[in-house]
C-alpha cells in the first residue's frame, strides 16, 4: 500500500501548496503505517525541480513528462493520475485544493471508486473508522466526515499541516502512459496569467484593499506594502465589481478563499461575505478609520486610522525591521 500525492507545478517549480500536500501525505503515512509516499507530477518540469518533493516527505517522484499534459486539461490529468494510482497500488490520493486539483479530484472519485473529502484541515482520525475534519460553510464551521470506502482521496486546504523541509531529495522515475484522445476533448486555446507574481490562493501573506482606498490610483501603497512583506494583493468584492482591481484578486464568499499566515485588510469594513473568504487566516490585521467597522471583531490586531496616513508609516516601519 502507498499514498500517492498529485503535485502541480508552475514556472518550473513545484507549487508550495503541493509540497504541503506531500508533507500531509508523509504525516498520514507515519500515523497510519500507510507505506511509501509517492509524488506524481505531470507535464514538462526538470528533475532538479522535482527532487524537492523529497525534502517535503516523498520517498520518490514519478514523472509523466508528456508535453500534452503541460496545459491542465482536466480529463487528461484525471486519466493519468488514475493510471499511476493503479500502477503503484496506492490506497490513498492526496492533493492540494486548487483550480485544477478540485476538478481532477472529482473525476478521480468516480474513476477510482473512492471516497473524496475536500477542504481537509487536519490528519484523519483512524482510531475507529476513518474520520476526516473538513472546513464547511465557507470556513464558518467544520464537519467530521466518515469515509466508508477502501480508497480515499483527500483534497487538503492550505496550512493543514506544517511543511516539512528536512527530508533527502527524492529520485525521479519516468513513467510513460498512453492517454486516450477523448480525454483531450476540451482544448485549452490560451492562458492569460500574471507571471512572476505571488499568487493569492497560495500566499503566506496577503494585503487587501477595500473601498476605503478611494480609487485604483491609490493601489500603489497596497502594492508597496505587499512587496515589502512578500505578500500577494487582494481586494473586496465592491472593488473588483467596479473594476478597480481584476476579478482574480476578489477575496470573499464568492471569490478567492485565502488561508495565509497573515491577512492585512486596509479600508475594508468586513461584511460577512468578505469574512467568509479570510476566516481561515492565522492572523488578521485590520486598518480602518471607522472604529465600528465589523472587521475589528474578527481581527487579531487593528489600527483605527486613515489608510492614507497609516500605510506610508507602516511601509517605513516594515522596511526598518529588515
Amino acid at each position, binding site marked *: 500500500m502507498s499514498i500517492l500525492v498529485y503535485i502541480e507545478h508552475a514556472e518550473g517549480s513545484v507549487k508550495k501548496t503541493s509540497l504541503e500536500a506531500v508533507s500531509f501525505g508523509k504525516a498520514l503515512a507515519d500515523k497510519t503505517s500507510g507505506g511509501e509516499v509517492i509524488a506524481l507530477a505531470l507535464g514538462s518540469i526538470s528533475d532538479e525541480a522535482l527532487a524537492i518533493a523529497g525534502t517535503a516527505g516523498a520517498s520518490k517522484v514519478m514523472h509523466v513528462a508528456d508535453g500534452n499534459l503541460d496545459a491542465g486539461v482536466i480529463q487528461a490529468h484525471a486519466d493519468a493520475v488514475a493510471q499511476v494510482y493503479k500502477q503503484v497500488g496506492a490506497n490513498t490520493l492526496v492533493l492540494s485544493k486548487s483550480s485544477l486539483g478540485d476538478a481532477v479530484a*472529482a473525476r478521480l*472519485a468516480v474513476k477510482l471508486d473512492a471516497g473524496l473529502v475536500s477542504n481537509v484541515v487536519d490528519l484523519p482520525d483512524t482510531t475507529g473508522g476513518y474520520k476526516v475534519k473538513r472546513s464547511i460553510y465557507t470556513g464558518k464551521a467544520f*464537519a467530521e466526515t466518515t469515509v*466508508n470506502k477502501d480508497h480515499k482521496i483527500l483534497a487538503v486546504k492550505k496550512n493543514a499541516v506544517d511543511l516539512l523541509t528536512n527530508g533527502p531529495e527524492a529520485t525521479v522515475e519516468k513513467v510513460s502512459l498512453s492517454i486516450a484522445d477523448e480525454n483531450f476533448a476540451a482544448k485549452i486555446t490560451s492562458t492569460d496569467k500574471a507571471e512572476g507574481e505571488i499568487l493569492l490562493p497560495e500566499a503566506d501573506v496577503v494585503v487587501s484593499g477595500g473601498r476605503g482606498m478611494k480609487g485604483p490610483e491609490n493601489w500603489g501603497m497596497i502594492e508597496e506594502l505587499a512587496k515589502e512583506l512578500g505578500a500577494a494583493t487582494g481586494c473586496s468584492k465592491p472593488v473588483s465589481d467596479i473594476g478597480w482591481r481584476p476579478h482574480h484578486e476578489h477575496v470573499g464568499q464568492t471569490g478567492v478563499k485565502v488561508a495565509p499566515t497573515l491577512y492585512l485588510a486596509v479600508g475594508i469594513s468586513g461584511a460577512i461575505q468578505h469574512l467568509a473568504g479570510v476566516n481561515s487566516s492565522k492572523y488578521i490585521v485590520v486598518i480602518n478609520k471607522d472604529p465600528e467597522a465589523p472587521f475589528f471583531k474578527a481581527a487579531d490586531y*487593528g489600527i483605527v486610522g486613515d489608510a492614507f496616513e497609516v500605510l506610508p508609516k507602516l511601509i517605513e516601519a516594515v522596511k526598518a525591521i529588515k
Partner: protein
Amino acid sequence: MKILVCITHVPDTTSKIQFTDNDTKFDKSGVQFIIGPYDDYALARAVELKDALGASLTVLNVGEADTEPTLRKALAIGADDAIRVNAFPTDALFVARQIAAIAKENSYDLILMGRESIDFNGGMVHGMVGELLGMPSISPVMKLDVEGETVKMAREIEGGKEYLEAKLPLIAGCQEPIAEWKIPNMRGIMSARTKPLNVVEAVDSEVATDVTAFKLPPAKGSVKLVDKDNVEELVKLLKNEAKVL
C-alpha cells in the same frame, strides 16, 4: 438545444451557522434559504442562452419537499420546468448519481451548476457527473458562449484565466462574472406557480462519505488595537508576538 441547471438550496450568505441534536444536525431555525449564489450565476447564464438560442431550460434540485420554494424561484427567474429528486442530499457522489440518472434519461446538451455549494463547499458534483456520463467537465467557468456545437469558455486559474473550447454536450461549474444575477419580475413569479415541477424518486447510491458531527470554530479573542501614531508597535507585535514577519 436542451439545458439543465442544477441548483442547491442553501442558507443565505449572511446566516449565522449553528447546529442542533448534539452537533449532528444543521439548525434551520431563523435561517433563510436561497438558490446557491454560484448556481444563481449558472441559472442567469442559462436564461440568457435560452433566450438567445431558443433552448429549453430545466432546473433540478436533489432535496426534500422544503426545497420547492427555491425551485419555484428558479422557475420565476426563467426556467421552463423543474425536477426535484426526492431525497436528502447525503454527499456529492449521491447527488452526482441522481443528476447523471436524470441526464441519461433526457439527454441534455449543456449541464450547468455552480462551481460549489456554499454549505459543503465540495465543488465536486460537476466533475463526478462528467465522469459518470463520460463528458468533459469544466470548472470554475467565468465566461461561456455557445457557437453552434462549440462551447467557448474562460476558466479561472490561480492568478488569471485560461480559455477553452469543447464540443457539446458538456458540464460546467460556473462562477461570476459569467452573467448578472437575475431578479424575478412579477410576470415571472405569477407564471412560476403553474410551471411543471416534477418530483421523482432517487436512484440507489451507496454512502461513500457521511458527516458524523459538526463543529464551530473557537471564538475569536478580542482585537489588540494599536494607536495610529505608533505604527511601529504593530510591526513589533507581528514580529515578536505573532512571529509572522
